[in-house]
């Protein structure tokens, strides 16, 4: 009964994913290849990691538009640390997650303690952080990442032999995604604070009455999001082998679109890891399909915008309908 229900909830979006995949592979057979799938995986790892953090934020009824500037900042710090401090992997990861967490903490404090609406608070931090990063880097690329780290980034977890001698493999960075998903899963599923995230999203007053501390939970959520962004920044830097301060312009929209597509409610309380991962996959497949079908990349933005508005509109329309048909009096 339990698994049955879970399946039903995410079923529609899985079906959409399948249908769209079929359409794309009919249009271009290159879609249904292992190479393409590994490609999609590699180029969307960062999006997937960040979607976990955004999911948590949206579960509390919040939103974060500063994620792209935070990952840029962390990537710059990471790059600097690699080049000037140490190319030790663990140290690098530590620097990245610490700086991400601090920035997330700042957002959390603004939202929980100063009661600034999340959209306005994160808009402000976005401007501050991005401004600082661009000032320090002057907007130019940072190259000269140590070989040791680049070598690490080239590693594959599993390789698949192919006919033409090329080695296809699951990139090492997949581990970061795995850690992000497992950590998110652990928090949401196994910890009391994780259930508190759902509880305050569902009924904040009751949650408070029950003994949860909403402010603390909100601060935690934004800090954890920063932590995940730290992981994403390391994965990103090891894939790109350089730091481009402009790489993430507008990226927050993609993260939000993927999470919304995965069924998370913008009003908080509803959303699952599985749903979000499928949402991310769907989003990536659509993007990949646009490329494979030679549709200009500008369409991507149009699609992102329409996905956000469309998903929420459907959500709203359904909610209104249930509200309208609610029985108010048990008529004799």
């Amino acid at each position, binding site marked *: 009964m339990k698994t049955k229900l879970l399946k039903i909830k995410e079923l529609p979006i899985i079906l959409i994913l399948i249908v769209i995949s079929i359409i794309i592979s009919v249009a271009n057979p290159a879609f249904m290849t292992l190479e393409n799938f590994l490609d999609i995986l590699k180029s969307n790892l960062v999006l997937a990691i960040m979607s976990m953090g955004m999911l948590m934020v949206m579960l509390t009824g919040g939103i974060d538009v500063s994620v792209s500037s935070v990952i840029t900042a962390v990537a710059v710090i990471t790059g600097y640390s690699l080049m000037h401090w140490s190319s030790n992997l663990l140290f690098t990861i530590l620097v990245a997650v610490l700086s991400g967490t601090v920035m997330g903490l700042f957002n959390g404090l603004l939202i929980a303690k100063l009661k600034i609406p999340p959209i306005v608070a994160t808009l402000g931090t976005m401007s501050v952080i991005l401004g600082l990063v661009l000032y320090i880097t002057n907007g130019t690329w940072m190259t000269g990442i140590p070989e040791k780290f680049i070598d690490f980034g080239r590693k594959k977890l599993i390789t698949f032999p192919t006919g033409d001698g090329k080695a296809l493999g699951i990139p090492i960075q997949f581990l970061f995604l795995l850690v992000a998903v497992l950590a998110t899963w652990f928090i949401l599923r196994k910890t009391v604070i994780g259930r508190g995230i759902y509880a305050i999203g569902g009924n904040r007053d009751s949650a408070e009455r029950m003994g949860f501390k909403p402010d603390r939970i909100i601060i935690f959520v934004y800090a954890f999001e920063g932590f995940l962004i730290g992981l994403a920044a390391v994965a990103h830097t090891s894939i790109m082998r350089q730091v481009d301060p402009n790489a993430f312009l507008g990226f927050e929209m993609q993260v939000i679109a993927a999470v919304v597509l995965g069924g998370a409610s913008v009003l908080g*309380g509803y959303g699952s890891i599985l749903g979000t991962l499928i949402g991310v996959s769907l989003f990536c497949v659509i993007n990949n399909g646009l490329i494979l079908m030679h549709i200009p990349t500008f369409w991507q933005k149009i699609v992102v915008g329409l996905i956000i508005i469309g998903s929420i509109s459907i959500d709203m329309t359904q909610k209104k309908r249930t509200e309208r048909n609610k029985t108010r009096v048990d008529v004799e």
Partner: protein
Amino acid sequence: MGQTLIELKNISKTFPGVKALENIGFSIDSGEIHALIGENGAGKSTLIKILSGVYQPDSGGQIILGGRVVESLTPLEALQSEIAVIYQDFSLFPNLSVMENIALEQSVKNNDNLVDWKAMERISRDALDQLGISLDLNTILGDLSIAKQQLVAIARSLANNARLLILDEPTSSLSKNEVRKLFDIMHSLKNKGMALLFISHKIDELFAISDKFTILRDGKYIGTYGEDELDDEQLISLMVGRKIEYTIYPKNKRTEPLLEVRGFSKKGNFRDINFTLHKGEILGLTGLVGAGRTEVAQAIFGLNPADEGTLLLDGKEIINSTPNDAVKAGFSFVPENRLQEGLVLSKSIEDNISLTMLDALSGKSSLINLKKRKELTRNWMEKMDIRPNIPEMITSKLSGGNQQRVVISKWLATDPKVLIVDEPTNGIDIGAKSGIHQLLRDLAEKGLGIIIISSELPEILAIADRVAVMRRGRIITEFFCENITQEDIMSKAL
């Protein structure tokens, strides 16, 4: 009967200007179902909030709980003393599973870091077993019917080891079948030694299940009776036997129809509503809370349009599908919840009074004539005797009676044909109440048709010419308000 679980002595509660409870004293035993009875505004909710620690009573009273004597409770103390309240909205989480709704509180209270799903499953299954019901623990609460959600709320209080369970109008949105099931469960809890405080308006239900009745009236304790000491009629007369006497206005029979409601029905709201309102008449619409009175009023005013039925104003058919349509046609609606629906509290008296008159105040240029607006405001403030006489005053700072006068002014300014007032004197002190009665009566004399929704029967009898009684979404009967008593109406409404 078991031993005394909780005893109240001399419990009073004063709100600014209103004495909500006065020297309440009674006790509840383990293993009994104790009904708390009274009309709207009798003080039941206030008493529950004191028991659950939400309100602190005035000093001087005592609550004796398990041998301990305290003046008041905090919410935490109430929980630790194992008092659980199931409010009408249940305070549950629609997005969490049945299991978590029942058992998550334990983890929070124990300051656990990790969720022990196995323990949660055990706790919630135990609680549901005690109730003798089977629910899938992993179902999301929001997917359940209201009746099942209520059972989850009860299970949650069992999981919290509640010894006193307070049920606030638990049957108001249940079907007859569901009510029967709920009563079975209440019986079994009682047999296990739990005390239940049961609040309901429905006399047949009260007699079906209660061991004792405690009656409140106007914040005063009337008495506690065993179930065999009273019959329905006695109970009703104890409930409604108010000491407050309103001025009874002479009744008129009017003949010229103003508004005719024909065959109004809306699924899940009301069915086959028919009545006629005459010019210069005050028509009372009464019945229990949840009988569909407000729903009918909102349907007429276009807030909650009916699925079928027609509306005739001055003999001509009109369709009010939005409040905008209704206002244009000459309707006005003073809603029940003054603070959330009637007034923009953060704005001034002037802003609120002129809200309905912006078109008239602006004319062709669409710019508001500030002088005219000031005049209009002054005019109505004077006519309605709104105090203090400061048009710029923010309405949240006014007293309840003055706030209501602002809302009524806003509507009278539109020169309506039909005025619908929903519980117009709720939370207003007695002096201001008679003022509003006088005002409504004067308006009727000038030819306005008024529909007044009120749970307070003396109010209806004092000012209405006729009264229509609703029960479960239908109009059961109509009375001409002369030579009838509250008991006549009550016996139809229950």
